[in-house]
């Protein structure tokens, strides 16, 4: 009898697992798209994009306005993560500059703990809550629904413009421009290696350690590659993925693997010092992200791009202090100071890099250079003339918004978070299953 029960229970499990595999064959039944099919058609029509790059001059705030503000900050990791450290520095600096109180919660996982942390910060009197990691988003939305009087701001998220919540906001920056500049520095380094006879032109292969395989990372490595290829036309690139935002071992191993594959220059989009350490040991130059590390890697660090979150922190505090509404999306740019480059490390960079970067930066700001100019890349041998991007991410993975305009992929124009997810020619992807 008991065996029978055990068998029945085991079969139930098996059935569940089979059921679990079903959506692969029938994507129409989509993962968590439980809204029913009848309102899928007009739901995109109801979405309004509301993206701003506005800056708030915080020096004009009165102490009465700032006295009531208390900011709650939620970080995925702590200061050992370059990504979180970059946020922490910016938020602290902005809060101290304006003179508002703030509370920090570090090491908050992307789960119920994020909701709990947000709710506790509300209890502690915070009226602005900020979270820094993509996976915090659904839990921030839960909290935003529960506490309509508190403003919830979330970096890197994608859903603020769809949720219809007046107190939930996303922010990102046109970091693809920063990465493009990093790519230009990389391309110049490749050119130097070719001129020195260290490599031939076809050996100009870049390696890139990425975290995940979605738009945020794809947009990043593609812009970096386009920057490199704009100065070194024979450049190619290999990208490996770790499947984690912070995995020092995997990032280090990823970099080592790329180096042994013949990559002569490394860049990355992950949050630990794993890849830089590997590069310093192997003597391979690299372009960094999130912050300079010329001290740790004096011989190999070329330059780094990063998002400076200070303008956004000032924007969010300033708007709340003045009692004005925040836009659903906010996008930092080169011109509003949210996308910044570190000092060029002359020891590792090719001569003239700093000057060249200034020049390209001015062209980017003036709009003379467009990073995702569709005439500069091809997908499966063809130039892209039209593309529907999945800006309204309902979990159905289908694009609905035309983003190619006048021969340019309009990245971060309508929605702050990146949407470029094309696999362009010249880039080889490895370990897309996080090998």
């Amino acid at each position, binding site marked *: 009898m008991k065996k029978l029960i055990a068998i029945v229970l085991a079969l139930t499990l098996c059935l*569940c697992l089979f059921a679990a595999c079903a959506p692969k064959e029938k994507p129409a039944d989509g993962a968590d798209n439980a809204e029913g099919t009848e309102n899928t058609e007009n739901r995109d029509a109801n979405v309004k994009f509301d993206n701003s790059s506005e800056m708030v001059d915080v020096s004009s705030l009165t102490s009465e306005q700032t006295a009531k503000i208390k900011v709650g900050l939620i970080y995925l990791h702590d200061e050992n993560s370059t990504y979180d450290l970059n946020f922490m520095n910016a938020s602290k600096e902005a809060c101290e500059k304006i003179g508002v109180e703030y509370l920090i919660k570090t090491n908050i996982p*992307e789960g119920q703990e994020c909701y709990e942390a947000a709710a506790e910060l509300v209890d502690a009197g915070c009226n602005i809550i900020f979270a820094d990691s993509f996976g915090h988003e659904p839990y921030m939305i839960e909290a935003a629904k529960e506490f309509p009087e508190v403003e919830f701001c979330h970096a890197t998220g994608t859903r603020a413009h769809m949720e219809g919540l007046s107190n939930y906001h996303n922010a990102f920056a046109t970091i693809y421009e920063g990465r493009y500049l990093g790519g230009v520095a990389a391309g110049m380094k490749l050119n130097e290696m070719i001129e020195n006879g260290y490599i031939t032109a076809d050996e100009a292969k870049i390696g890139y350690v990425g975290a995940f395989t979605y738009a945020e990372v794809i947009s990043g490595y593609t812009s970096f590659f386009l920057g490199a290829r704009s100065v070194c036309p024979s450049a190619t690139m290999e990208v490996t993925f770790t499947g984690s935002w912070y995995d020092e071992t995997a990032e280090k191993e990823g970099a080592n693997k790329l180096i042994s594959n013949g990559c002569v220059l490394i860049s990355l989009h992950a949050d630990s010092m794993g890849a830089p350490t590997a590069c310093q040991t192997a003597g391979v130059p690299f372009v960094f992200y999130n912050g300079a590390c010329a001290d740790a890697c004096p011989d190999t660090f070329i330059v780094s791009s990063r998002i400076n979150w200070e303008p956004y922190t000032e924007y969010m505090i300033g708007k709340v202090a003045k009692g004005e509404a925040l836009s659903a999306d906010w996008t930092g740019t080169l011109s509003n100071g949210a996308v910044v480059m570190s000092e060029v490390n002359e020891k590792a960079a090719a001569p003239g890099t700093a000057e060249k970067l200034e020049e390209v930066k001015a062209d980017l700001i003036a709009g003379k250079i467009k990073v995702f100019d569709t005439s500069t890349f091809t997908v499966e041998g063809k130039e892209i003339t039209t593309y529907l991007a999945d800006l309204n991410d309902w979990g159905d993975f289908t694009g609905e918004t035309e983003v190619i305009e006048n021969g340019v992929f309009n990245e971060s124009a309508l929605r702050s978070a990146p949407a470029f997810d094309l696999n362009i020619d010249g880039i080889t992807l490895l370990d897309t299953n996080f090998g």
Partner: protein
Amino acid sequence: MNKSRAPLIHITKRKTMPWYCAWGVRGAAIVAALIACAVVTMFMTGENPIAIYAAMLKGAFGTTRKLWILGQNIAILLCIALALVPAFKMRFWNLGGEGQVLIGGLAAAACMICLGNRLPSGLLIAVMTLASIAAGAVWALIPAVFKAKWGTNETLFTLMMNYVATQLVAYFVIIWESPKGSGKIGIINQTTGIGWLPQIGGQKYLLNILVVAMITVIMYFYMNYSKHGYEISVVGESERTARYVGIKVERVILRTLLLSGAICGVAGLLLVGGTDHTITTTVAGGRGFTAVMVAWLAKFNPVGMVFTSFLIVFLGRGASEITTIFGLNHSYGDILTGIILFFIIGCEFFINYRLNFRKSAGKEAANV
């Protein structure tokens, strides 16, 4: 008179200490731990230790919300610890709690995702419950079968099953991730709430707490007053005795591990269906292992485990409050928890053993 020198200290086993002495020692250990924490804190951070303790208390009990979160965390930890008890009493070292919780949670998430559009919420919850319990039970049953039939080492086997479960969850996360490539599922059915366990009286965590309270009571009676519980303790004391008195040992092992895994499956269900509404590889968060400590500290007594799980959760919550209020690194909270646990576990030594110091000759003569 014996001329050879006795060692300065020698250790002897105590017979039994009266319960009030034992609890006195434990109380003293906690006080000593708090003093040690205070000293470490003063030296390392320069903060006032009294303020630190106040912050710890505030972190655990400061607001109604904090009380609920405390209750929820105790409930989940206690639930997993309760699941381990019958196995441990039988001296089957089930270190697979983590994996059994994960696989139970995975089964619940699978139902929520794949059947969310097809079944009404009530029926879906019933299916989820069955699936979670079955998945957890099967995950514990596999090592049990090997142990019962071929005498394999259950410690290693259950431990390894944790990794299999973690990888399975990682695999399904990639299948169900949204958006593609982000490695995250997000909240399942966030707009509709299909398959979310009901909230009682608008309280998110009340259901979980009630379910675990019920399991605690049932487990207490099952272990102490049922034939099964008796069989388990006989098998634990001596398999041969058990065989001699006609207990079918294999059967007891299988039955007990089915129960153990099933309760872990319930913990997975409560986490995924009740609070988190998502599945990640870290949803159990190491509690499958912390639960081992909870169970041991309370000598496998379900009622005592309410207190030990309270203690561990209280320390964790208090420590995290310290890091927030004083702006210290999160690891600092772990250091304090480590110090306190060191004292609490260490004091068991003094309860079980006596330290005998070398006495001066005169005193010894007087004692004799």
